[in-house]
């Protein structure tokens, strides 16, 4: 091989590696990206069973029920729609009724949402960002408190931080 050919081979090798990487990234995006939905969207869009999605909203008051072993069922709501969710495993520390939550999973054949991960992150004032943005837009939630809870707001407003 001449020097020119060698250089060409190196460049071709590099370019083909990058091409493979780009194709891989595109393939992976098509396979494993989960779209974010709120219960109101679910009613409007047809989501095929088995497609992984993220479902976010508030945990509806009084909806958390413990089933067999560590299976838990609850309803995710955004004030407009409700989606029942079942989840097996340990719920995060900050999972509470009336609090924001993001679940990831898929609908099964009978159109029930089975979550394999539930996120309610690490701060008591934390509201998953996706959920907060949407709820704010729809006026269900203001910084700090969910108004969906209805009664009792005046109590919370009187908080004296000292």
């Amino acid at each position, binding site marked *: 091989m001449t020097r020119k050919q060698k250089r060409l081979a190196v460049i071709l090798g590099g370019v083909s590696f990058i091409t493979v990487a780009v194709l891989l990234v595109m393939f992976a995006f098509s396979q494993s990206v989960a779209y974010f939905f709120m219960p109101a969207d679910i009613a409007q869009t047809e989501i095929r069973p088995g497609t992984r999605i993220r479902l976010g909203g508030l945990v509806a008051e009084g909806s958390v029920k413990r089933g067999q072993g560590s299976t838990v069922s609850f309803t995710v709501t955004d004030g407009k729609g409700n989606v029942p969710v079942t989840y097996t495993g340990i719920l995060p520390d900050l999972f509470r009724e009336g609090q924001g939550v993001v679940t990831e999973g898929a609908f099964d054949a009978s159109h029930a949402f089975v979550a394999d991960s539930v996120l309610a992150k690490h701060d008591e004032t934390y509201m998953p960002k996706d959920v907060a943005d949407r709820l704010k837009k729809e006026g269900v939630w203001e910084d700090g408190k969910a108004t969906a*809870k209805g*009664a*009792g*707001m*005046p*109590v*919370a407003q*009187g*908080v*004296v931080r*000292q």
Partner: protein
Amino acid sequence: MGPMVLWILLAFLTAGVAAVLLMPFARTAAATPADRAGDVEVYRDQLEELNRDRAQGLIGTQEAEYARAEIGRRLLAAAGAGSVSGTVAAKASRHRVATAIVTLLPPVLGLCLYLSLGNPGLPDQPLQARLANPGNNLALLVTKAERHLAQNPQDGAGWDLLAPIYLRSMRLGDAELAFRNAVRILGPSATRLTGLGETLVAASDGVVTDDARAAFEQAVKLDPDNPRARFYTGLGLEQAGRAPEAKDVFEKIAGESPSDAPWMPLVNEHIAKNGGQVAPKGAAGSDAAQAPGNPSSQDVAAAGQMSQGDRQQMIRGMVDSLAARLKEDPKNLDGWLRLVRSYAVLGNKAKAQEALKSGLTQFPAVGEDGKQLVALAQEMGLAAEGANP
């Protein structure tokens, strides 16, 4: 004296920084060392390394020769450049602008920014020192009590004192714990149980939960005349949808309370809400404060009013202890100022006047300190004897 010392220190700091930055200009301009000396050293080391690599077979003989030639060329170039790159003698005149900037920028920028951002007048306030001299700062007293209770968790009286304060400042978790501890250690009493119940109600956003109802019912058992506990049992019934029973309870409270009791408007409202006739027991029923609204908010407001007595009592205790301390150590201007203000705020004009007088004997009105007392007196509407110059 505080701020003055601060400014002196800041001035020293600024001067120090400017001096350090000016140091290079003060030195007689040294010759620039041949810049490339370091390069030469690096290339020499590379040649040695090449030999080592060659010995270990990390590079082929022919390649090593090529590499040696490459490095050699660079070495020559570096050495040549090194001898050329000469000294640029810095002229002192050139530095006039530079030194001016270096001298002026730190103080000017420092002062401008600091004055707009900083709080030069505010002293440090380490918690330990503040706790040692809490004065009548309620929050500090609470913290002090908390520390005491952390050491002596079996001090029921401490929990009893703290619990209502927690409730008023909406630290509901702490309040619940404190009430429960007080009940556990000192035994149940109507006040404690009612407080616990109110805490639970507040924590569940105005809903009388089972836990809360149990507490109120026990309180009523202990003290059948306690209007607060009875009011909440009524509220619980109302929320459970048992309107007639709730109405009975409210009407009973109304019947046994004096017509000008502060809770009457609220009770009447609930009687009306549960389908009863408000007994025309005076003007309280049509009070403006009785505007319809969210029941839970008013409940809580009423609760706050009811425990106003506790609060006053607590503050009075603190003020008395301050007065006692001042008797022992009268050379404490801050103390006198605080004492006068406290008495005036509590509405005890006579005591305030007395404290002012004692303060003025320690700090005569003509002095700088005395003037502060006089100014306070005027602000509080007290007559300062011998204050007028």
